Every structure is written in C-alpha cells, then in structure tokens.
C-alpha cells in the first residue's frame, strides 16, 4: 500500500508536471517545487478527493499570516503528509 507521502508526491507530479523523482519528503511545495497558489488548489482538490478530507487551507493561511505557524509546517511534504494522516484519523474517529 502506498504511503501518504507517495500518494501526495504522485498527485503533485501529475498535477504540476514535475518529475516524480525530484519530489522528496523534505521538499517544500512552494520554495523547492515552485508550486504557486493556483496550482496548489488543484493539488488540494486531488488530495481532498483521494483521502476524503478537506485540507483546512484557509486556517493554515491565517496561521501563517498571523505568525502562529511557518509554511514549513504545512508545505514541507513530510509535514503535509502528517497533517493529512491526522485529518484522515480525525475523520474516522
């Protein structure tokens, strides 16, 4: 069974036409992979559909803008994958 990271990396590769091998767990979606906010909406849509969740993008953006969180917490892919796992778990609870 694919890990959450593998599924996310596959989504990013397909959505943004980025070579799959260049997408690493430590990659930052914005800073390293240069994914812009519009492309990230397509990724969020695919993630929402794949995992049956709703990524709280508005909340994350607000936290970053308020200085309560860094973009690393949400957009480094291993962290994003952990966030997805938490949302999936919370949904099933």
């Amino acid at each position, binding site marked *: 069974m694919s890990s959450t990271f593998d599924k996310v990396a596959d989504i990013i590769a397909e959505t943004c036409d980025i070579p799959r091998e260049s997408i690493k767990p430590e990659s930052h979606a914005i800073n390293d992979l240069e994914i812009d906010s519009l492309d990230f909406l397509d990724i969020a*849509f695919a993630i*929402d559909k794949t995992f049956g969740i709703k990524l*709280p*993008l508005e909340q994350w*953006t607000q936290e970053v803008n308020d200085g309560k969180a860094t973009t690393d917490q949400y957009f480094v892919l291993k962290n994003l994958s952990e966030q997805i796992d938490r949302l999936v778990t919370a949904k099933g609870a």
Partner: protein
Amino acid sequence: MQLEYFQMIDRVVEIDVDARRIRAVCTVPQQSTIFEGHFPSYPLMPGVLLIECMAQTAGWLVSVLGGFVAMPFLVGVKDAKFRSPVFPGNALEFEGHVQHEGSGYAVGQCTGRHDGKVVCEAHVTYRIMPFPTPQFRQVLLERAEQIGIAVKEFAK
C-alpha cells in the same frame, strides 16, 4: 442576457442544494455590439462568453451553498469544449454542478445546451474570497433576486 454588462443568466430555474445542482436559462440577444466584431456579417456567440455563462451558472450555486458570505472568483477553466455554434436569438440552458467545496475554493462543472443539444461544457475552479466591499455583495444579492434566486432563503 446583456452581453456588454456580463449579465449572462436571465433566470435560475432550479437549485437543488442537496444534489449540488443548478439550472439556468438565457437567450442570446439578437443585437449586440459584440456581434459587430464577432463576426462582421456572421454574428456568432463568442466561446469566451459561453465560458462566462458556465462560470456564472455554477458560480451562483457556489454562492448559494456558501450563503452569499463570500465571493467565488473564477480562477481556472479546464476541458472547455464548444460543440456547436451559438447564434443570436438562441435560447440556452445551463446545468451546473458543484463537485467539491474545499477550504477557500470550489470546483464545478457546467454544460450548456440549445434545443437539448450540448453546445458547450467545462470544468471551473473558483477561489472563494471575502467581498471586496459591502456594496459589491449588495449588488450581487440584488442581481441574484433579479434572476430568481431566493436570496432570503439562502443568504446567511
């Protein structure tokens, strides 16, 4: 339909909130300055305006589902197809479907028909953002009422 004012939808005839579906109708005007250029001696509804029809149809549904508390701005169009020409005087029906309501965005699909035949279709993505001004929201609500949306039922 007033093309110059981007008033593409004449009437919303059905909204099914549970099914996330909307149906809207409009009639392409016989006369418009748009047709003076598109095209001289052969007036034809521009494809970009059919996209606007589809975006507005599904966009109204996004607004309804969100209680008109924020504005869905069109940010993406995919797989747009124009299957048949649309001419002045044609009566059109658009059916929109909101496929996903994400956090701060929504994704929909819309199909346009004339005489039951599909003339256009597209997938549309919206970024949902606060209204730029209270007046903007008021104008939108008034327009919604004009085209038959029960604003009092849906607005939060």
